[in-house]
């Protein structure tokens, strides 16, 4: 097939899911001529699995993305139908926002944003080949129809579409999610570039008709009374609205028996599925087998949107045959007469091995080729979005001749996520968890703006005005903490009476107001009556003041750990290092280091198989080279 179409762009984005949208917007907003390919324009920002954004640690990712100038937070603020702050009874580090989305509205809204962004072109076509020169510098892409798009950087955001195969029972079809067309040609092109291809799998539960559900047998789950937005730019007052409910019900022994009796018909257990699935989001058949002692599992029934009757059966993803699906769902209270609209299915897809990527998400061996999202072996919309944003930003930085944006583990969950992906070899789809973040007390969702706006501003995705506001907020916080630490109060009768009223120990000697805030039974608001000089402050400033004072001891300890951590992160390893020249390295460590090419001593120390002794050897070698 001859070329009959040729166009020139700066950046090509392959895919228009959550990663692709962020990558495309970042590049275009930074002024680069950007073209985004999708197999179907209708599937832009599609949510093919759960109908929500955020959740534990994922909420953090969205906040961070927002502080860097990404779109997901703004988009869900416009399209949510229920919102909840999870873990609000726990420490501030694990408070996490989660919103139910109106799925089609979410897609439509994102599409509108993309379509109205300058320098951004949307094109429906399947990218079939990646073009490079002989030094493996990106020169363009070729579509299945033979058209060539010249460019200097490509960002791969193919999600689960590469050679996708959907399976339930013995039925399987080579399609992407929701029966959409798979991308069947790009894998071979990647292999030709020397990129390792792996096969992962994931799954989704059935969607059922709302009219066939008896909600009276379920527990209704409401949204929060006071809605907190995802985006720091959204005014909370603008989004207080009527919310829809979700419902909770449970599986039982009958459900489990049906599943056990039909395990031989499950492609998971009969070996029809070869891909590696995640442990954290197991199918219901996995749960029943692995946690045999549990007599019930939760099922969350969640609306897919305001204008559809489809409901999502959270917790019951499956790849059992459709007759078994019907039988098992109908054992669940409230679902006795349920009608399935879309079957549950498992999906297998090709993905790359992210240890072949630099922390900038550029391939180490193909220059100008970036990759973000589920193709990197992650799972989840939010994980995908933040990678898309970082990959997009760094493609732009490369073309603009600027330094890449690399966040480390002490700066952001995004840093933890990407460092884990590119450093630790994972054999299953990677999901963000708060327990993966060593410094989570510092990486709170409430302070993402304070942590990252400066970076977003420097990149060029956060406006001067927005940045100035954040800095103003920082100043107010610091000043208020200083003031509270210096205002001393003594054991006057007023104070004694106040403390007695709050079941708080009486004072023996003078303490600062900050000391009082630290007491578990008190906080900033509670001591207002003792604090005569207090000036009114915005709620988000008060929130920071309260947290910083209350958890000061823990925060300071983490800050000291971070200081230690940073020292090793800052010791960069030159890209041209020859590990064969480093004496005394153990063989395993030498091979690992050659493969990974870690950028810093810190990263090297996290590679499994590289021991502390190897790190010492490496440190000594680097010092001697100076």
């Amino acid at each position, binding site marked *: 097939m001859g070329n009959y179409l040729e166009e020139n762009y700066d950046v090509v984005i392959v895919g228009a899911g959550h990663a692709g949208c962020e990558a495309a917007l970042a590049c275009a907003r930074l002024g680069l001529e950007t073209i985004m390919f999708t197999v179907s324009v209708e599937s832009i920002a599609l949510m093919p699995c759960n109908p929500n954004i955020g959740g534990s640690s994922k909420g953090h990712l969205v906040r961070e993305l927002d502080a860097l100038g990404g779109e997901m937070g703004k988009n869900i603020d416009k399209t949510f139908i229920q919102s909840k702050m999870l873990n609000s009874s726990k420490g501030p580090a694990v408070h996490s926002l989660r919103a139910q989305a109106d799925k089609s509205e979410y897609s439509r809204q994102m599409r509108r944003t993309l379509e109205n962004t300058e320098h951004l072109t949307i094109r429906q076509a399947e990218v079939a080949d990646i073009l490079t020169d002989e030094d493996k510098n990106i020169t363009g892409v070729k579509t299945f129809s033979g058209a060539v798009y010249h460019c200097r950087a490509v960002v791969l955001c193919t999600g689960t579409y590469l050679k996708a195969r959907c399976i339930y029972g013995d039925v399987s079809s080579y399609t992407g999610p929701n029966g959409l067309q798979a991308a069947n040609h790009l894998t071979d092109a990647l292999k030709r570039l020397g990129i390792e291809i792996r096969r992962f799998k994931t799954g989704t539960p059935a969607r059922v008709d709302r009219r066939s559900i008896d909600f009276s047998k379920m527990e209704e789950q409401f949204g929060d009374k006071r809605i907190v937005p995802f985006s720091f730019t959204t005014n909370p007052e603008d989004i207080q609205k009527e919310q829809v409910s979700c419902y909770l019900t449970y599986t039982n022994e009958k459900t489990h028996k049906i599943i056990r009796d039909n395990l031989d018909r499950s492609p998971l257990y009969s070996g029809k599925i070869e891909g590696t699935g995640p442990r954290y989001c197991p199918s219901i058949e996995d749960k029943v087998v692995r946690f045999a002692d549990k007599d019930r599992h939760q099922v969350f029934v969640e609306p897919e949107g305001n204008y559809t009757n489809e409901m999502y059966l959270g917790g019951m993803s499956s790849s059992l045959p459709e007759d078994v699906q019907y039988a098992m769902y109908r054992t669940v209270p409230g679902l006795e007469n349920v009608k399935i609209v879309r079957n549950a299915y498992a999906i297998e897809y090709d993905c790359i091995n992210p240890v072949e990527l630099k922390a900038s998400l550029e391939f180490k061996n193909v220059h100008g080729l970036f990759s973000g999202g589920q193709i990197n072996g992650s799972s989840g919309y939010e994980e995908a979005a933040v990678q898309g944003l970082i990959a997009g930003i760094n493609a732009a930085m490369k073309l603009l001749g600027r330094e890449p944006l690399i966040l480390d583990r002490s700066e952001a969950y995004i840093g933890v996520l990407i460092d884990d992906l590119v450093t630790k070899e994972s054999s299953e789809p990677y999901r963000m*968890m708060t327990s993966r973040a060593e410094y989570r007390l510092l990486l709170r969702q409430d302070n993402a703006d304070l942590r990252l706006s400066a970076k977003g501003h420097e990149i060029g995705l956060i406006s001067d005005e927005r940045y100035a506001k954040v800095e103003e907020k920082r100043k107010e916080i610091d000043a208020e903490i200083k003031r509270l630490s210096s205002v001393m109060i003594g054991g006057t009768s007023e104070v004694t009476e106040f403390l007695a009223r709050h079941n708080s120990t009486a004072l023996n000697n003078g303490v600062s107001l900050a000391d009082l805030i630290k007491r578990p039974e008190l906080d900033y608001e509670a001591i207002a009556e003792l604090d005569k000089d207090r000036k009114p402050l915005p709620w988000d400033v008060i929130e920071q003041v309260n947290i910083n004072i209350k958890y000061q001891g823990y925060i300071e300890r983490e800050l000291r750990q971070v200081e230690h951590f940073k020292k090793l992160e800052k010791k960069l390893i030159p890209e041209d290092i020859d590990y064969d020249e480093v004496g005394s390295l153990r063989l395993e460590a030498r091979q690992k280091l050659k493969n990974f090419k870690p950028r810093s001593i810190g990263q090297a120390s996290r590679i499994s198989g590289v021991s502390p002794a190897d790190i010492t050897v490496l440190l000594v070698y680097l010092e001697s080279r100076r």
Partner: protein
Amino acid sequence: MESRETIAAIATGMGNAGIGIVRISGDDAVAVADRVFKGKNNKKLTNSRSHMAHYGHIYDGEELIDEALVLVMKAPNTYTREDVVEIDCHGGAYVTRRILELVLKNGARAAEPGEFTKRAFLNGRIDLAQAEAVIDVINAKNNYALKSSVSMLNGKLSTEIKKIREELIYNIAFIEAALDDPEHISLDNFVDKLDNFVDKWINAVDKLLTSVDNGKIFTEGVRTVILGKPNAGKSSLLNTLLGEERAIVTDIAGTTRDTLEEQINVHGIILKLIDTAGIRQTEDIVEKLGVDKSRRFAKDADLIIYVVDSSTELDDNDMDIISMINEGVAGKVIVLLNKSDLAARTTENDIKSYIDCPVINISAKEQEGIDELEKKLEEMFLGGELSYNDEIMITRARQKDALRRAKESLELVKDGIAMAVPEDLLTIDLMNGYEELGKIIGESVEEDLVNEIFSKFCMGK
């Protein structure tokens, strides 16, 4: 790794009687020393000029430990280019170790093998050639330390640590699972349960600390193997050495009969006899030489005492032993020509034609030549040819340090619970405790937590 934490170690060889030196290096070196040292004029070391020696006493709280000479050397003109304090004490190995432990309790961390030199290098004090020589040592020692720290642990104690760690990680994982999946897993009333667990763990760690102090975890001494063909006189030698008037016989708890170890105190030098069970029971050490275990003991020992029956000619059994020694052993070899009371068929020259080592004529039966053996041992020891395996003491100090830190972390958890601190903050100290205990049995953390969460708790979506 590259931290500037203040570190401490015993700088002298372990066994040498007389002066022992505890060296401290780092920003807090002087402050740490001040906490344990009372100078003659009650002067604080902090106010000392650099490179000054101070006479005074080392105290653990109110308890006097030893008199000492303390040398304060301030950065940068020191070995590590950091502040360095050296405590010279007089009380021999035990007191030196006590002082090291005291220093660790007061803010220093036990130095890794080679860490002083590493700092010296990284701070630009020594050049690469010197440093590379050290690296080999670090590598060897790191491997050894890990092996030995685990192998020296008595099985029961490492089982105990593993048990605490298993419970710890289970509880941490439970909290984490609940935080990551609050809608599936609830933390209601969990803290009360946790509080009970923490009490139990602190209790268990306390017991371990006591047993380290009592020396039940491992024994120290020159690891010694006695070799010789049947009837060469190993048993009588052993009995002579173990003679009531100068022997300390220790039955180490938790070890089984067949790996019984015994200690002999020779003029203050402790010989730890390995694999003596065989000698006493069957005299079949030569046959057992074929067995890997005995061969390994002999190969790794600090000292081999090879007993030759001088009244017979060297036979196949002897040649086996000689060739094993000549293949290379880690320690020193002394040959005892036993049965000097009988007519000699094998002489000192016969032995020396095969092995280059000291040869002593003895008669175990008549108790002759034993003095000469003891003198030889003392000579070798003071000359540094023979020494205690210092890793054992260092490891012991390090393990005690880790246990103490684990306990501190657990106490912080208790405090946190009392202060109604949220669960996600409690996990910080729980995890620290888990890590410290892991150091003792040589296990790293890596993906433990994530694996535990996934394997024990049903996470949903």
